[in-house]
């Protein structure tokens, strides 16, 4: 561990004011502290924002405003979340372990880093950790890395379950920073790696997430499902957050599909969604839509399984949601 200083911010504005190069904001620490121990993250200044008064879940004009410092557990068990956004509660509860969820914050969950083995091992190259050093995962261990939207520079996946549900719910991420306040609609927070994989998100230096705001839930039934080889405490091989609204005539009136474990960001299956609108809510249509979406997939030798796994998961989930 390298020397660093630690301070607690008095307010969000205070945090932004005190931000300088070498500073990292500290939430629950469940990822950042691990990365510091591994030498992956080397902040000089740790600015603790976990105790800011950003820990409330409040209803604001029919929307639900979730403070950035709300613990994952508190979010998942909140009565309004459970009642209106069961998919979100489910997604959060499939992540990590009980102990980690008790510590991890909403903002920290969104901003956690990839668990790519090379990224986490400072003795090996990684373009995300050390730009220009190379991506050994493309030839090496990529069995749980991206099949969609990756680049020759990076094939990492974003590990969050919660972010996938937020992408389907079209949540808004509220940010304050040196450039003022702004709102980023999900899944716009996370970016694809392109030739700058060191940037996970569109946030600028000093930006601080203050809240996540959920619009009223879309009509229809929703579901979050996560595929993993161990029943708990494992990142998704593939996950899905889906909302399906079927009209009285049996056609799809509304549909949202977000996929996890497949890309550098939660992946909104917009192509599949578009194709389904107005179509009959049947297995055949679901399969055609899933296949259309996954035409864009470029699997690597050791993660080709993700394409049929995602396809069957999309079809099966939509079939479950169809009345």
């Amino acid at each position, binding site marked *: 561990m390298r020397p660093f200083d630690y301070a607690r911010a008095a307010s969000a504005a205070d945090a932004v004011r005190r931000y300088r190069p070498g500073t990292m904001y500290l939430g629950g620490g469940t990822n950042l502290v691990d990365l510091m121990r591994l030498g992956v993250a080397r902040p000089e200044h740790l600015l603790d924002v976990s105790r800011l008064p950003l820990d409330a879940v409040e209803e604001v004009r029919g929307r639900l405003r979730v403070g950035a410092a709300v613990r994952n557990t508190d979010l998942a068990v909140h009565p309004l979340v459970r009642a209106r956004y069961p998919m979100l509660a489910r997604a959060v509860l499939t992540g990590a372990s009980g102990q980690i969820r008790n510590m991890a914050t909403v903002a920290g969950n969104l901003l956690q880093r990839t*668990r790519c083995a090379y990224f986490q*091992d400072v003795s*090996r190259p990684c373009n995300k950790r050390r730009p220009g050093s190379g991506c050994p995962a493309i030839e090496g*261990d990529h069995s749980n890395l991206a099949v969609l939207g990756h680049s020759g520079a990076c094939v990492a996946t974003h590990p969050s379950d919660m972010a996938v549900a937020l992408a389907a719910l079209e949540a808004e991420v509220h940010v304050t920073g040196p450039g003022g306040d702004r709102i980023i609609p999900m899944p716009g927070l996370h970016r694809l790696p392109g030739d700058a994989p060191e940037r996970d998100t569109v946030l600028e230096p000093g930006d601080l997430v203050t809240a996540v705001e959920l619009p009223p839930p879309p009509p229809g039934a929703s579901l979050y499902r996560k595929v*993993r*080889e161990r029943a708990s*405490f494992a990142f998704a091989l593939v996950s899905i957050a889906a909302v399906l609204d079927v009209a009285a005539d049996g056609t799809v009136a509304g549909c949202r599909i977000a996929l996890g474990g497949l890309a550098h960001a939660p992946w909104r299956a917009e192509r599949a969604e578009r194709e389904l609108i107005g179509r009959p809510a049947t297995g055949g249509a679901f399969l055609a839509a899933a296949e259309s979406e996954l035409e864009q997939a470029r699997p690597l030798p050791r993660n080709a399984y*993700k394409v*049929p*796994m995602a396809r069957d998961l999309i079809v099966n989930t939509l079939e479950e949601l169809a009345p």
Partner: protein
Amino acid sequence: MNRVEGRVKVTGLATYAAEYPVEGVAYAYPVQSLIAKGRVARVDAAAALDLPGVLAVLSVADPPELAEDADAELALFQRREVAYRGQIIAAVVAETYDQARAAADAVRVEYEPADHDVSLRADHPGLYRPEVVNPNFPSDTEQGDLEAGLAQAAAVVDVTYTTPVLHNNAMEPHAALAVWDAEGTLLVYDSTQGATTDRDMIAKTLGLPRGRVRVVARHVGGGFGSKGTTRPHAVLAALAARVTDRPVKVALTRQQMYDVTGYRTPTIQRLRLGADGEGRLTALEHVAYEQSSTLKEFAEQTAVPARVMYATPALRTAHRLVRLDVATPSWMRAPGECPGMYALESAMDELACATGIDPVELRLRNEPETEPGSGLPFSSRDLAGCLREGARRFGWERRDPEPGVRRDGEWLIGTGVAASTYPSKRSPCQAVACVRDGGFLVQVAAADIGTGARTALTRIAAETLGVAPDRVHVELGDSDLPAAPVAGGSMGTASWGSAVVRACEELKKDGREGRADTAEEVGQDSELARHAFGAQFAEVRVSAVTGEIRVSRLLGVFAAGRIVDARLARSQFIGGMTMGLGMALMEETLTDEEFGGFLRRDLAQYHIPACADVPDVEAVWLEEEDERLNPMGSKGIGEIGIVGTAAAIGNAVHHATGHRVRELPITPAKIVMARF
């Protein structure tokens, strides 16, 4: 009875190796090789030595004095040649752990790298036949005419199974605290499975007489074999303490444990089985391909259980080894039996399918009269009883053999069975028992690595003395106590217990003290095939959508002599079975072909079962009288639980899906790609 040390453990009062408070302690942190093969050209420690708190840098640039015949994995800083990525090539000693760690990062190492080869293949040109496999079995055996047996068979199975690199992953990371006194005597608090053997090995490495080294290991947080032999952290602590003239602690990180504390070799295993129309074996061939390092030979006895299991007129077993630029593989729970029985018991299931004979019945039809490989009579063998009792409890007779036909929604359901076996041996051991404070003190340098050895020995002593267990105090985990063998090979209780029984018998005669050394008694043990046996039954649910596999039921039935303590025994059995479940479905360390070394070196990436993966695991045992083992009539139970589990689960996956995955672990990816 409850665990003797249960209260101190759950209240956090039990002291582990890294936790002993010592005044003036310093910390050492290793620097590990970044190349898999080549030479260390230069070590520049200047920047590290300038950092705060740094006391010394040890490296190959200035080799510390060690015995010339030191074990190659323990001969730290003696040679500039690098044998594997992650090998310890230097270390920093500093006032605090964090200072040592930061300074280790500042040590500049220049290498002369060479091309490495870290990949095991069955057609590797470097494969050779080792003289013996662990611990001292012939590498190859051949009885009868194998090809003739296969040619006359009504059904033949010719299949290849593979198992990946597996890591022991004990909960307590390897750690040591070394303290030299003014007379040059070394005290090491180590996390070890055997204080006596660890002391001997540390003394040998340092070129010291045994009497100048003492090892203390009162509580050990698991080992699974990885603490069965001395590890480099203990030697590093001793060297660093000698150089700095300070007590020195070394506590390995989880990642370092993957690099320098051993692992189970990957295996490629080819099985050829032939059977007649009634399912009786006409031939059995088991050939195992495995790896070792360039430093030393470690030859896992993977095909040896085939010499124990089934009657056959033709039996061939063979081991082929290749020396790669990797760390030396080492002991991991049921070495040999665990990977070997996975392949053999999976192949037996394939033979059952090929002959149309129920897999329980197939095994019963191939029960041998004597041990097939040696011709020796068994001291006792009740595999048949385990299979029958397991089948009864599991509801096996209702099983439809047709694969891929049972479904509950999206979940395909299947059941599988496999046999378990593990040797029941013992080693010479010493013990002392005496009257102390109105009770009884029993001393033996045994190790309690979380198994409950302290409790079992208390019970054995109390039963021999005819007193209540709370009047007996067992002292263990210190090499100054009467010499004892390691907690390994499922021999601990049998070896230590024999000495404790004899010491207590002597105490009863003497009235004050009893001393025992079982060397002569053990040396006179008659030549017999001594093994424990078992049968494991698994029910799995496999998602037809996602390929996810969940084990809904796991039952083990064991015949392991007299069970010393039911509660401890159950923990050992279900612990082994749970580890076997991990082997079946998730455990896998990847070898990094590009850079060498291992990937996924932590418990977030190397998956072991979570509680949610083990909803229903049960172990039971049969009454088994065997007077020819040891005074307790017990067989070791620490390892047999992991033997056969992966086969039972793999066989159940086949029964559920109709698809046979022959490469462990059986993951959703492999199920999905098979497109059953």
